[in-house]
């Protein structure tokens, strides 16, 4: 049976290409180097500051319109670009794009367990008010931040920090 098989399928073992264990080890080390370099490249990419986009400045509201711990919806830079301006409990103003990066539901300002968040009610996503990073839930990217300036008693939007999407 075995002889018949060899007759039917003659294989020249001498000419066949074997991968020795040592070659496999070398390949594994090489692949390991590739992965390490790839990880380092990703880490380097992550250190690049996010691009800032300049738009024409637009007035949002006056400082008296917002009390500490409240929020105001506005559009910037175009009428359909929903944004949210928040006056944090410590008095600081921050603004973000209002569309959740998961499925574009509008986010709301909420205080949960004494922590201020931008909360998406659709799928329980939440973003940090510090930098728009994802705090919980399914959103895959942080919220793009809107640059604001307080000019006297008025709050102006002056540009946006490009998000990762």
């Amino acid at each position, binding site marked *: 049976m075995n002889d018949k098989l060899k007759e039917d399928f003659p294989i020249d073992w001498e000419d066949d290409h074997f991968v020795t264990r040592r070659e496999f080890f070398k390949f*594994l080390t090489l692949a390991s180097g590739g*992965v*390490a370099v790839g990880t380092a490249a990703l880490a380097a990419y992550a250190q690049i500051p996010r691009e800032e986009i300049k738009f024409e400045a637009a007035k949002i509201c006056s400082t008296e319109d917002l009390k500490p711990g409240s929020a105001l919806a506005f559009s910037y830079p175009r009428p359909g670009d929903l944004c949210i301006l928040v006056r944090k409990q410590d008095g600081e103003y921050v603004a973000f794009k209002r569309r959740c990066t998961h499925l574009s539901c509008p986010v709301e300002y909420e205080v949960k367990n004494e922590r201020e968040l931008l909360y998406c009610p659709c799928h329980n996503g939440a973003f940090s008010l510090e930098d728009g990073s*994802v705090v919980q839930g399914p959103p895959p990217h942080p919220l793009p931040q809107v640059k604001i300036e307080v000019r006297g008693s008025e709050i102006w939007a002056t540009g946006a920090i490009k998000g990762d999407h």
Partner: protein
Amino acid sequence: MNTPQFHRRRQKAVVFVGFLLFALILFLIQLWLFVMVLENILAGKTGMVIQASAFSFLLLGINIWMLAGVKRLMKMQ
């Protein structure tokens, strides 16, 4: 009759396979680190990427060290 050379060869083979399996595990950890770094960057979290990258290089160093050790092992008479 099994000669001392035969036993030595078998012992070397066992050490070799052990190193190889360990290198494979380290490589899998590196792959996992790579995926985690990618996921975190996409989620906007960049706090751990430098440490993960450094650890990946450390694992690469161990792999290179083991490869050199295996080469030395094979040269031994």
